[in-house]
């Protein structure tokens, strides 16, 4: 079976600083894959490469077997990959409802339509309401996204990401800055909403990572030093040395 995401020997330099070196990653369809690693390791850069935000200096990226390196983000999104951002990235002046609805429009086939009334598209309405319900923001539907609390914005960020129904979901530190209770709620949400889809998640909370992920990749200095099941990662001496230290024992 072809992998959902296949990264082959990707390198990325900014100027003459090489940030990503010989990156190889394979995420199977339906798998929950966590990427961990110290700050500045290149996790967000990896997300940017896979989602088309930036182009690799060399190497190749495939989505469901099709080469996507070199494509624009919206072309990759249309092929079934959707990502969230580490720093909240929503439509600040638009309401919560409108934020989610915008993310539903392309996927429901309405594209650039200027001859349809957006308020009278039943499947758009229904799907938007469903997503709002899923992310527990129905009661905030008419509030401009810029006025939400931090935790609510993070949930909206997830809502926008999953709204299009992409088969591959990438979440960049979705629980960063959340309290313990908020994190638990968000993880339950992520688990439920990505059921049956492929998930790639960057996460710092090790209990979340080991509880959620089927497989884990450890990124250090732009290179994946280990990839495997939680047990394999836990027992890997290289990982212990480079990143996890004593904390997992």
């Amino acid at each position, binding site marked *: 079976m072809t992998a959902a995401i296949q990264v082959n020997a990707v390198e990325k330099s900014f100027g003459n600083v090489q940030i990503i070196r010989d990156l190889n990653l394979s995420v199977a369809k339906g798998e929950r894959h966590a990427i961990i690693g110290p700050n500045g390791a290149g996790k967000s850069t990896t997300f940017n490469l896979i*989602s*088309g*935000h930036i182009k690799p200096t060399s190497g190749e990226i495939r989505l469901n077997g099709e080469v996507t390196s070199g494509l*624009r*983000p*919206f072309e990759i*999104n*249309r092929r079934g990959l*959707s*990502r969230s*951002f580490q720093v909240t*990235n*929503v*439509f*600040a*002046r*638009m309401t919560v409802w*409108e934020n989610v*609805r*915008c*993310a539903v*429009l*392309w*996927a429901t086939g*309405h*594209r*650039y*339509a*200027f*001859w*349809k*009334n*957006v*308020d009278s*598209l039943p499947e758009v309405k229904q799907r938007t309401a469903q997503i709002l319900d899923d992310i527990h923001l*129905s*009661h905030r*539907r*008419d*509030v401009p996204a810029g*006025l939400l609390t931090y935790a609510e914005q993070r949930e909206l960020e997830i809502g*926008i*990401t999953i*709204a*299009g129904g992409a088969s591959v979901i990438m979440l960049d530190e979705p629980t960063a800055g959340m309290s313990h209770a908020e994190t638990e709620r968000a993880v339950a949400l992520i688990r439920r909403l990505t059921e049956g889809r492929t998930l790639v998640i960057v996460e710092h909370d090790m209990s979340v990572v080991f509880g959620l992920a089927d497989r884990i990749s450890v990124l250090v200095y732009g290179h994946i030093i280990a990839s495997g099941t939680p047990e394999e990662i836990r027992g890997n001496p290289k990982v212990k040395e480079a990143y996890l230290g004593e904390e997992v024992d």
Partner: protein
Amino acid sequence: MTNAPTPSLAAAKQESSGALGFYGVWLLAAAALVVLPLVFSSGGSLTSFSLIGIAIIFALSYNILLGQTGLLSFGHAVQYGLGGFLAVHVMNAAASHNWPIPLPVIPLVGGIGGMAFALLVGWVMTKRAGTVFAMISLGIGELVASSSLILRSVFGGESGITTDRTSLMPLFGWTFGPQIQVYYLIAFWVLVSAIAMYALTRTPLGRICNAVRDNPERVEFIGYDPHVVRYLAYMFAGFFAGIAGGLTAINFEIANSAYLGAMQSGFVLFSTFIGGTAYFFGPILGAILVTYLQLGLTSVTSVWQLYFGVIFIGIVMFAPGGIAGILMKHRPLIRAGTLGTVIPSYLVAAIPTLAFALGIILTIETVARFSGGDPINLLGIPFVATAPTTWAAAAVLVVGGFLVARITWRRVADAWDRAATVARDRGYLA
């Protein structure tokens, strides 16, 4: 908050009253457009109404770019002017070849002209938003305005190209010679264009325009190419600007290079911004006010542009949401029933603020008319520009007015804060 209706109920209620309000507003607008010339029937008001109507379409078209899509254009008059020129050429051709084209469809020709130009240059222009787009729009504006003086066969040089609107096929006995018939032609297009532009904001494209305005980067990750969105918005803006240009050509029976120039582009930016870009009706208010001021001020003062500058700076600094923004700020207070607590402070503040404004006007006119010019007439009181008493009066009004006004402004702010807090506590955010 506790006894607030459940969200779904509130939403349903909002939707049904929204639909009713929606048709109500347009019916009211249509009725107003029909009745206006019957109430104010002088030739002067008919001319003013015609110009205001055209300005409304033009400003609304500009707001497709500025308010809806976040594109600041310094050359929107290009599409307007080219629409006007195409309209004139088609009118002349129709007259000389006896084409069966009635005058009321000519604005559509203007729209096609504006859109065709947008189609041609838009793809390159809208590749980037922000400063890049603003600069290119300025460049294109200058380019077209200056070529219009060189390409004499198309643009008629300095004098422009004239036409005769009565030479086209009459429609239901209307020749469109009298201004009243032209007014109704314009009113019809104002209504149709405004409804169409409002409807556009309610389409998938219209919503994504807002998303591109707020965050073009994120738009790329929900399947949309912001470049295509901007390009489409630019074409629609060009289309409606062209309709406005076509109407202007009909109204004045001429198209000249001034239609295309920076003055005209500045005028529409002014109207739109002063009216307020965040609400659909903002540019309508702006177009009415600015056109009315322009018509009124040009006859009483030679430095009317200076007043525009002062108003514009005032709006940018103190009310960046424009008139619509100021009005809509009151909505939560009205809903919460606390508006009554701020009105007295407004009334108190109005007096010294008016004195301050009069002082500014007196100062400007004194400077403008110091070396010759008519005597100043302010609220029926004559002032001589060279008299020290005039200077003293101006100084007293400016300084005294400002000092007192500042105190009353603070009171307005305090009263406002209290009322807004109460409104927030009662659950009214907007």
